[in-house]
């Protein structure tokens, strides 16, 4: 065969084959995510970890004799795994639904997402503790070793099997959902679960089985993937974000749409590897951006409604806890003496993250939009500040400003893209866009890949204040933090902030009052990105490093966690949350790999038991106390009045 555009056919078809195989996995996974989302309204972030469980399940079965010596267990090979593991993973899914996920059905999407993020961290963290980053080998089953030479390429039998089996499973799922009685129940319950219940169908049980089925599909994909990719704790981590992007691209319209989108994107990714290898990790996210611009509802999507702000603020407007004029001086006072009580570096870390959380609270708490990609703004700004300071010799104030500017522009663009879709999609889009930035930073030369930009000079503030001096640095950070805090408070109290509040309380009413709510949301999102950038840039100067961790989704999750622990929408919540999270990270730093498990558990516990956050819970306590005081006062007044008669 002739070479095409200087590309050998072996390479072209080889990559197409790999792309097709990836596509099969994307299709199987996004099918599960889409069915679960449709029925349960849960963005199943833990799907990737469940896929990883499938692969490890296969590996465990193979190594039963080594794992439980003395019991005389046989080593169960691939075909056993194919039969047993999806069922086992499905059962684990059913258990997780029963114990955790069921509790958040009635709540805002944010909680479901956080809960599954927490479960992901716990599961992946545990496997990381057990197996580290190293992958385990899993051999191709003996019956499928070898391959066939097609003349222009060599086609291994196992890959052929994966494609055939994967497509068959997808087709079978399509048939079940679209053509059977059970599928009719599923589709009906997706539209109107209460009515389906009123017909005598046990919808709660059906939800559990649906979840188990979707998760079982992930487990099956994991078994099938085990001989192709390495079995490692990280294998599910990046695939889930890609899967979310696939779901955004496909839209929620149809099962066949999800299958087609998955396959197609896998192939496109494969082709990109041939023609432009550097872009292959990001191409799916770029396609997502294009689809959002050209066809916001997704290729096969039907969803149209544009209202999606949710009121999850825990603040009581007239509480003294919300009074910035009171708290700004208090925070300033505490900030001034803090370095004499704790390590200044620790204090600076808290302030950077508190500012980051305050910025996040602006969009999540004040507007009610579930953004899940603020790491992009925090991290990009950190990189820009680090780069301009290290390579161009910018003084710290200009480095920070440069970072902030880039974050603001990115916020405007990402916000412009993301507000086209609602609810959980908003989260998925912001997450995918942040992942796009992450992959860019992983590959671009100026970011130095895994190393990040190190040894960033702190420099001289305004040309004469030496920030290498810890106390100078500390008070600079304090000033930045207080300015950011005061500005965000002012924004909340301004007429603009009042409109944001009315959007979150009742977006339809705000629209009917003539507000173009999308414009306000975009402006708020951009401001939020700007302050996140301020926090990130400052952090880069303080710690003299910008690294990939700043851009990773866990940083976005941290912002959400801090806001949630402190109290969503409250003035002080993000600060309290930042103190708790940073202190926790410091406390558990010695645990090594366990940190992620502990943090994941914190997510889960917060969602289940501390949804109001520290400040919100305190507010509640204050309110009930003043209520009972008022009642008691009323009662004594009554008595006095009676006595006077």
């Amino acid at each position: 065969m002739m070479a095409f555009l200087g590309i050998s056919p072996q390479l072209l078809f080889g990559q197409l084959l790999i792309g097709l195989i990836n596509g099969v996995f994307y299709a199987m996974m996004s099918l599960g995510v889409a069915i679960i989302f449709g029925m349960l309204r849960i963005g199943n972030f833990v799907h990737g970890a469940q896929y990883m469980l499938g692969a490890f399940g296969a590996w465990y079965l193979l190594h039963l004799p080594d794992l439980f010596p003395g019991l005389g267990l046989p080593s169960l090979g691939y075909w056993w795994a194919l039969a047993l593991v999806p069922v086992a993973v499905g059962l684990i899914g059913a258990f997780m639904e029963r114990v955790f996920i069921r509790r958040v059905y009635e709540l805002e999407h944010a909680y479901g997402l956080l809960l599954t993020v927490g479960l992901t961290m716990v599961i992946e963290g545990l496997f990381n503790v057990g197996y580290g980053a190293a992958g385990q080998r899993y051999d191709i089953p003996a019956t499928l070793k070898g391959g066939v030479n097609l003349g222009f390429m060599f086609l291994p039998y196992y890959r052929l099997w994966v494609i055939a089996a994967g497509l068959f499973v997808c087709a079978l799922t399509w048939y079940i959902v679209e053509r059977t009685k059970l599928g009719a129940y599923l589709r009906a319950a997706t539209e109107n679960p209460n009515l389906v219940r009123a017909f005598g169908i046990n919808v709660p049980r059906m939800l559990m089985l649906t979840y188990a089925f979707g998760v079982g599909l992930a487990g099956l994909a994991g078994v099938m993937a085990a001989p192709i990719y390495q079995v490692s704790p990280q294998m599910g981590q990046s695939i889930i974000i890609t899967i979310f992007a696939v779901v955004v691209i496909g839209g929620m319209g149809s099962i066949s749409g999800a299958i087609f989108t998955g396959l197609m994107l896998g192939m496109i990714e494969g082709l990109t590897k041939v023609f432009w290898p550097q872009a292959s990790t990001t191409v799916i996210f770029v396609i997502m951006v294009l689809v959002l611009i050209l066809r916001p509802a997704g290729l096969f999507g039907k969803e149209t409604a544009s209202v999606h702000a949710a009121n999850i603020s825990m603040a009581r407007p007239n509480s003294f806890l919300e009074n910035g004029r009171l708290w700004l001086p208090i925070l300033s006072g505490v900030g001034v003496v803090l370095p004499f009580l704790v390590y200044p570096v620790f204090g600076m870390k808290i302030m950077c993250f508190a500012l980051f959380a305050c910025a996040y609270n602006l969009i999540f708490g004040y507007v009610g939009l579930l953004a899940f990609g603020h790491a992009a703004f925090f991290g990009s700004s950190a990189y820009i500040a680090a780069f301009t300071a290290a390579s161009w010799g910018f003084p710290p104030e200009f480095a920070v400003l440069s970072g902030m500017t880039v974050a603001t522009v990115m916020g405007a663009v990402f916000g412009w893209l993301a507000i086209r879709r609602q609810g959980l999609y908003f989260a998925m889009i912001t997450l995918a866009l942040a992942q796009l930035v992450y992959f860019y930073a992983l590959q671009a030369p100026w970011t130095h890949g895994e190393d990040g930009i190190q040894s960033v000079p702190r420099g001289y503030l305004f040309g004469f204040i030496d920030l290498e001096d810890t106390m100078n640095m500390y008070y600079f950070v304090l000033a930045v933090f207080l300015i950011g805090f005061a500005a965000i408070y002012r924004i909340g109290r301004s007429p603009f902030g009042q409109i944001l509040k009315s959007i979150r309380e009742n977006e339809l009413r705000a629209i009917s009052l003539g507000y173009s709510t999308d414009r306000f949301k975009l402006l708020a999102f951009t401001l939020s990105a700007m302050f996140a950038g301020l926090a990130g840039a400052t952090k880069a100067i303080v710690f003299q490093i910008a690294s990939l961790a700043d851009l990773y989704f866990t940083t976005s999750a941290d912002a959400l966690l801090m806001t949630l622990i402190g109290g969503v929408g409250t003035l002080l919540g993000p600060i309290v949350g930042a103190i708790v999270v940073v202190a926790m990270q410091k406390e558990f730093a010695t645990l090594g790999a366990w940190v992620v498990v502990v943090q994941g558990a914190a997510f889960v516990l917060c969602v289940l038991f501390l949804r109001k956050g520290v400040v919100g819970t305190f507010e509640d306590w204050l309110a009930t106390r003043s209520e009972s005081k008022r009642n008691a006062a009323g009662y004594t007044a009554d008595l006095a009045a009676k006595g006077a008669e």
Partner: protein
Amino acid sequence: MNAQVSLTVSDLQGWYGESKALHGMTFEVGAGEVVTLLGRNGAGKTTTLRAIMGLLRKKKGEIRFDGEDVAGRMPEYIARRGIAYCPEERGIFASLTVEENLFLPPVIAQGGMALEDIYALFPNIAERRNSQGTKLSGGEQQMLAIARILRTGANLLLLDEPTEGLAPVIVQQIGAVIRKLKERGFTVLLVEQNFRFASKLADRHYVVEHGRVIDTLTAADVAGNLDRIQSYLKV
């Protein structure tokens, strides 16, 4: 226990969040009867049906069906005991074909209508069985919503404003259907604002206002009390 009574509702109270919608509904439906709940928009008729079906979360009071107190039961349980619900918004599923909509409610007891009988009663539905459910006209959707609860063997039918927004010809057809259902021994609790329609069908009428029953009339009372009834329903 009177074996002739199908449903007894006593002092039923219900809430949507903090706001109270039912303030002590009390009424009764005899086996084989057609009974209406009449009342203006917002009186609490739909809420009452939702409470009977177990779809209203927050409620107090007693709901006896065939002698069993079903208040506090889950909707799926109540449906399987033999109550079938046709909601005001009809609830035809867009992602299901007409036939799938028709076959969706599971058969819960013997004695449901045979498919031929249903198709005989609703010839339009038979013709369009492969269309998407929501592609039907409003009248056809209403027919489908009634048709699909006749197969299941449920005896008590809760019909929420089946004539709402429909042309007079269709309203007449629906009237004929309900009369046939009565002949077949179904018990019907009919919610209506269209009194002219209801008066020709029902054995008894309960007038609902502000979440409670304020008046009761038998079919025989109707002729002499037209003015009074009109005044209840006037907006």
